[in-house]
């Protein structure tokens, strides 16, 4: 799913400067599941903003709402009447939802209260790991179901590099935690599958034009379009 993290409070609070009516809009799909931007979190942020504004002697009306999904027009209709009451909306959806809101309710101010960070999976409760870069050209049929684009620090198509030691990458997370070497994982699993020869396949440089380097992507399913 899409994961996001809330922006620092000071940054969000700064966005409300000069406004006397603010709506915090949650999204009850991906960002709710990653405990960042669902209705619960929207209410928490609204309460924080109200307390801070009151402390600062500001007279600001701050409420919250949530759409089932901010990235679909139909669900935005459901919160439209409420949104129209507020000149500033702080959206807690992913970047897709925030932009959908901004387009649907233009020229109203829709600002992001979260940073969208990855396509991740919950490894365990409350821990998410990046698993897909949405690169537009999946290769994991040859890499034992492990994505080298997003799980190798260098996105190498022919790994491992010299920075792989005892199954770990030479790069660590910002928290200084070890990262598994994707190519060591790929080797171990290919061996278990009896497909070690795939390590010898020489993969040409990746065609990034199918990723975001090729400009904004568009997908159309003609056969599914309404008649």
């Amino acid at each position, binding site marked *: 799913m899409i994961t996001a993290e809330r922006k620092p*409070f000071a940054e969000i609070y700064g966005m409300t400067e000069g406004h006397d009516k603010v709506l915090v809009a949650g999204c009850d799909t991906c960002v709710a599941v990653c405990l960042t931007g669902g209705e619960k979190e929207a*209410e*928490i942020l609204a*309460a*924080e903003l*109200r*307390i*801070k504004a*009151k*402390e600062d002697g500001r007279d600001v009306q701050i409420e919250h709402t949530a759409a089932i999904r901010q990235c679909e027009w139909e669900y935005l209709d459901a919160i439209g009447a409420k949104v129209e009451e507020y000149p500033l909306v702080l959206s807690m959806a992913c970047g897709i939802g925030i932009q959908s809101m901004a387009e649907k309710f233009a020229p109203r101010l829709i600002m992001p209260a979260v940073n969208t960070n990855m396509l991740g999976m919950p490894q365990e409760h409350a821990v998410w790991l990046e698993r897909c870069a949405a690169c537009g050209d999946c290769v994991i049929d040859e890499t034992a179901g492990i994505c080298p684009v997003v799980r190798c620090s260098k996105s190498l198509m022919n790994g491992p590099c010299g920075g792989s030691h005892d199954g770990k990458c030479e790069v660590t997370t910002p928290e200084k935690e070890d990262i598994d070497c994707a190519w060591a994982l790929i080797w171990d699993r290919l061996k278990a599958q009896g497909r070690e020869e795939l390590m010898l396949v020489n993969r040409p440089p990746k065609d990034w034009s199918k990723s975001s380097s090729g400009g904004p992507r568009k997908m159309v399913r003609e056969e599914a379009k309404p008649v």
Partner: protein
Amino acid sequence: MADEPTGPATAPSEVAGAAAEAQPQAELPANEGFEPEIIVFACHYCAYAAADLAGSMRLQYPTNIRMIKLPCTGKLEVIHLLRALEAGADGVYAAGCLEGECHYLKGNLWAKKRVGYVKKLLEEIGVDPGRVEMYNMSSAMGPQFAETARSFTARIRGLGPNPVRPREGFTAAEVVRRQMADVALPDDAGADSTTGS
């Protein structure tokens, strides 16, 4: 520490305000005339019963605390603590079972994490994180219940009034009771004489 007969109940989640907690009441800044209103989210199985015991033992503790009975402190959510502060409570604490003794196994540990998270949120918005706390006690710890009420009241008296209290003389407890209507358990008859109900 939890088994000592006279000390306050344990507050393992305490990350701030520890010094105030340890100080005798007399040495704290006076804040003359300020009577804080404190909301206590108390577990039915332990702290609420400990309060009952404190009453049976005729122990004295401040009348500043207002009890909300929960089936378990695990029922307490982040927003409940924030709502209580926003309603104007000067301090809020959760009182759950001793760690490892939760009737629902881990409810008190969830509460501890949530209280810790609220402390972080309060730091972000410039409110002293010492206004919220987590305590643990058993139903047999009546004296500790009273001591916890005394020491936390002293801490909040030292911090002064909640900066967002709606107005002088405003009572937050009834607002919080309404907010918690779908979560809290009804009070035992006569168990909480401080509410005036």
